[in-house]
C-alpha cells in the first residue's frame, strides 16, 4: 500500500515535470486563439526563448536575466506574428509555420556563431538554473504518513517555473472569465464586428492577446532550457508546442480542461517511461515500441470517442477588415 502510494507520488512528480511546458504553451495558445489569432507558432516561440535563455544564462550566470531575455524574444516573435496577421491580415498558419522554421534554423546558426559547439550552448551550472524549491517544513513533515509524503514528496521540491505554470492556469481562467478584458477577448474571437461597434479597438485587443501568448511561451522555453535541462540543444522543443496546441483543442479552448489534457499527456509519458522493460503479469515484457505508441493510441481513442465535438472560436483565423 505504502509502496503503491510512493509510486503514485513519483509518477505524479514526473507528470508535472513533463507537463509544465505543455501547460504554459496551452495557456499561451488559449489567449491567442480566443482572440481569433491561430497560433501554430507556439513551438517556434518556445524554442527561440529556450535558446536565448540558455545563452544568457551561460554568459551572465543569472536566471532572472535569462528568463527576461527568453520572455522578451518570445514576445517579439509574437508581435511579429501579430504584425503579419493583425495589421496585414496575413494567413495565420503560414505566419506561424514561418516562425517555426525561422527559429529552428536561426537558433542553430547563431549558436554555432556564438559558441562554436555545433549549435549547442555551453552547459550551465546550478547557480544559473531554476533549481527545485523546498516548501516550508517539507523535510520536517516528510515522515508523516500519506499527507507528509504528499506534501514533501509531491507539492514541495519543484522549481519555481512549475509552480508558475499552475498559477498561470488559475490566472488565465480568472482573466478570461472574470475580467472586462477577458470578456472582450472572448467577444473579439467570436464576433469582432460587434466589438468594433462597441467602440473597442479589435487590433489592440488582439495585440495584447498575442503579447500575453509570447510571455507564456517565453516562460515555457526558459523552463526547457535552464530548469528541465542545463543548456540548449538543436530542436529541443521536440514538437511539444504542437502537443500543447492539441491539448488546448482537447480542452475546447478552456483553461481547466486544457490543463487536464496537458496533465494527461504528461501522465502517459511518465507511465510510458516507467513501464519500459517491466514485466506485466499475463503479457510478459511489453515491447518498447508499443509503450511509446501508447500516448498516441490513447489520444486517437480519446479524440474519437470521449471528448466530443470541439468548437473553435467563430472568428478564428479570419482577418478582421472594417467595412468601409
Amino acid at each position: 500500500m505504502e509502496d503503491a502510494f510512493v509510486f503514485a507520488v513519483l509518477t505524479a512528480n514526473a507528470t508535472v515535470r513533463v507537463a509544465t511546458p505543455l501547460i504554459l504553451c496551452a495557456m499561451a495558445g488559449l489567449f491567442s486563439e480566443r482572440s481569433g489569432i491561430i497560433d501554430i507558432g507556439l513551438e517556434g516561440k518556445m524554442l527561440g526563448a529556450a535558446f536565448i535563455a540558455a545563452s544568457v544564462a551561460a554568459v551572465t550566470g543569472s536566471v532572472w536575466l535569462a528568463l527576461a531575455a527568453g520572455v522578451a524574444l518570445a514576445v517579439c516573435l509574437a508581435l511579429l506574428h501579430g504584425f503579419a496577421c493583425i495589421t496585414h491580415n496575413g494567413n495565420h498558419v503560414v505566419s506561424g509555420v514561418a516562425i517555426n522554421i525561422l527559429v529552428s534554423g536561426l537558433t542553430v546558426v547563431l549558436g554555432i556563431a556564438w559558441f562554436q559547439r555545433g549549435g549547442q550552448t555551453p552547459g550551465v551550472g546550478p547557480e544559473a538554473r531554476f533549481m527545485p524549491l523546498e516548501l516550508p517544513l517539507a523535510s520536517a513533515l516528510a515522515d508523516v504518513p500519506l499527507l507528509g509524503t504528499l506534501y514533501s514528496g509531491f507539492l514541495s521540491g519543484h522549481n519555481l517555473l512549475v509552480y508558475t505554470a499552475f498559477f498561470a492556469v488559475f490566472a488565465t481562467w480568472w482573466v478570461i472569465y472574470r475580467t472586462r478584458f477577458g470578456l472582450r477577448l472572448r467577444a473579439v474571437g467570436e464576433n469582432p464586428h460587434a466589438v468594433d461597434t462597441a467602440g473597442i479597438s479589435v487590433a489592440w485587443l488582439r495585440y495584447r492577446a498575442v503579447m500575453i501568448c509570447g510571455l507564456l511561451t517565453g516562460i515555457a522555453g526558459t523552463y526547457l532550457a535552464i530548469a528541465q535541462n542545463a543548456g540548449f540543444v538543436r530542436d529541443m522543443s521536440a514538437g511539444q508546442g504542437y502537443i500543447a496546441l492539441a491539448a488546448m483543442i482537447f480542452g475546447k479552448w478552456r483553461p481547466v480542461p486544457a490543463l487536464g489534457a496537458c496533465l494527461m499527456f504528461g501522465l502517459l509519458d511518465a507511465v510510458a517511461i516507467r513501464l519500459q522493460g517491466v514485466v506485466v503479469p499475463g503479457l510478459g515484457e511489453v515491447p518498447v515500441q508499443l509503450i511509446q505508441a501508447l500516448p498516441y493510441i490513447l489520444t486517437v481513442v480519446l479524440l474519437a470517442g470521449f471528448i466530443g465535438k470541439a468548437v473553435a472560436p467563430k472568428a478564428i483565423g479570419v482577418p478582421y477588415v472594417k467595412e468601409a
Partner: protein
Amino acid sequence: MKSVSTLLASAILLTVSTAVSAADLKPAVVFDMGGKFDKSFNQGVNDGVMKFNKETGLKYREFEITNPTQREQAIRKMAQRGSDIILGVGFAQSSAIEKVAKEFPNTKFAIIDGYVVAPNVQSLLFKEHEGSFLVGMLAAMASKSGKVGFIGGMDIPLIRRFACGYEKGAKHVSSKIGVIQNMTGTTPAAWSDPGRGAELTRGQFDQGVDVVYAAAGYTGVGVYQAAKDAGKLAIGVDSNQNYLHPGTMLTSMLKRVDVAAYTTFMEAKNGTWKAGIKVFGLKEGGIDWALDEHNQDLISGDMKAKIEAAKSAIIAGEIKVHDYMSDKSCK
C-alpha cells in the same frame, strides 16, 4: 588461373591507390545524428580526425547529418568531389556506404559500427560488450542499493549489445543485483534527446537505481546531468566523459572510435589500407575503461584490482562475454 588474375587485379588496384595517396590525400568524414559535439560517439571520431589533421597537416572534408535522408547524399557528394577515403560514422550509414561504394569502386570507404562487404570498404567494428562488462562490474561494486540502470539510445541490436554486456558484468559481481534497462526511442532522434534521457534516469532513480550507464549519444548528457542533480553515479560512453561532472561520473566505457578513425586515415595515407573487417576489442586497445583525475576518488584500489583482473581474463579468453549480436538474445 582465376585467383592469379584477381591477385593481379588487386595488385594493380593497390598501385593505383598508392599512386593516389602519394599525392595529397583527400579524406572525408560524414558524422551522424547527434553531431560532432555530442561529447560521445561522434565527438570521438572528430577527435581522431583532428589528430590526423594536426599530425599530417592534411585537410579533411566533413559533414554533419541532421536528418536521415542526408546520409546517402552527403556520402555521394564527398565521393563526387574526389575524396580518396570517406569515413561513415555509425551503423545507420551502412546501407548508404554500401550503395555509394558500388558507384565509386576506386574510392576507399570505411564505416564505423557497420558491416559492409565490398572490395573497397573497411568495416570498423568494436567489442562493446567487453567494455560494458567491465563498467557493469564497476557499477555493481559501487551500487549501495543493489540496483543498477542502463539507458540506451535507439533500440537497435548494437545498443542491446552494450546493455547485455553491462548486465552480465553486474551479475558477475553478484547474481542478486537488479538491472533496469530503458531505451530512449526507436528513431534516430533518440540519439539527441537529453530531456528524455534525464526523465528516464529520474524514473530509474525512483525505482531504486543508484548507478546508471548511458549508451545514448548526446542523450547521455541529460542522463549525467540528472545523476548529478540527484547525487547518484553515472557511467559515460564512447569518449572519456569523466570530466563532465567530476564526483558523480563513476567511469566511462571507452570505445576508441578516435583510434579507429585515425588509423584508417593514416593507413590510407601510408598506403597500407586494406578493405575488410577490423575488430577493436580490449585486446586491441580499442575498448577500455576510463580512470583519470576526475574519478579516481570513486574507484577504490580493490575495485581497480578486480576490474584489471577481469580485463586480463577477458583478453586471455578465460571470461567469455556473451555477445548479443551473435544470437540476438541475452541469456
